[in-house]
């Protein structure tokens, strides 16, 4: 059973950004943890594409298959989410339908001063990123 796919690119990583006079360490904060139903799939760039596709397929198939699943993608994972949704639709030979919604997600970065003695304050910077939410469902006959 695969672990929950979390949003990508938001694990805290240390990368120095040398644009301020005081050197800062950039730490990307994870986006807010969103409530997740059983048929919610969050796509990231780390997990194998085939594995994510198989997971979505399994959610739709089977005896306990859901009537619809919702695929979410943030930033670079938008492309992958769209690909997965279109592949699912192609495999179903037209039985599935897609509904796509877009949104903007606010992301917060923490900037910490490199040197603890430096006079820099830990800053936070917010930026926006695009997200897509694709509903894949069997239309009611």
């Amino acid at each position: 059973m695969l672990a929950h796919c979390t949003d990508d690119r938001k694990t805290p990583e240390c990368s120095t950004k040398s644009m301020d006079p005081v050197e800062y360490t950039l730490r990307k904060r994870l986006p807010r943890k969103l409530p997740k139903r059983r048929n919610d799939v969050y796509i990231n760039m780390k997990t194998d594409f085939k594995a994510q596709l198989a997971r979505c397929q399994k959610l739709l198939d089977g005896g306990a298959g859901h009537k619809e699943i919702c695929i979410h993608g943030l930033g670079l994972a938008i492309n992958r989410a769209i690909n997965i949704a279109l592949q699912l639709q192609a495999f179903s030979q037209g039985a599935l339908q897609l509904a796509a919604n877009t949104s903007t997600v606010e992301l917060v970065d923490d900037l910490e001063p490199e040197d603890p003695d430096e006079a820099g304050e830990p800053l936070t910077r917010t930026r926006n990123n695009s997200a897509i939410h694709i509903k894949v469902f069997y239309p009611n006959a």
Partner: protein
Amino acid sequence: MSGMSFSSREPSTCSTSVPKTHHSVTTMDGSLNTCSAKPAPAGFRRVSSTGEPSSCPVPGLGPGVLEMRVKEGSKIRNLLGFAMSRLQGGGHVSPVSQVMFTGTGRAITKTITCAEIMKRHIRGLHQVSKLQYRTVREVWQSREDESIQMTVVKKVPAIYIFLSKEPLDPLELGYQSPAEMSSSSEENTSGAATESSRKRHCSPCSYETVQLSKIKRSTQEHTATAYNY
């Protein structure tokens, strides 16, 4: 579903011909096989790239629709400057009330960003988003020998984001109403029961921002906060 092969990369579903014969044409068969061929054949340069014009999937269009084709290298500032001026009415031309952003492949993210920024500047825009595959036909020519050509036909994902000042059909797949939404809220055309659980407000997010910038924190605290997610 037999004969499917996947690579871990994006399935742009291309198939290229290996032998460098004169004017060889490679076409896709019906199945969506993804190949692991490198995107640019060595020693070739792309001569022409013609997209098969796919029918506009959004029904109920008005007569004048501004179509904005977003490419990978497009500058968002230029795109939005033009679209805004057209939507709000330039000096010499009558204002358009509907605009459609289209993008394929790597430009999809930029397309979505353009549409989102436009929705933020101009309130009350109805949105319909559509996804589909689009076939693109590229002709590659060898650098050394000009006569050797290769035609590649591939399917790339495409997105069509239709923004309109006039109300659109709410039952349309991919419809989003122009209500005030900030972060990660979802409109469901069916299944309204889940809608309340999915609406999120931005206020906690901005509250966190204000709080953190005031207090001087240690590194451990930051790590702990981040890992709590």
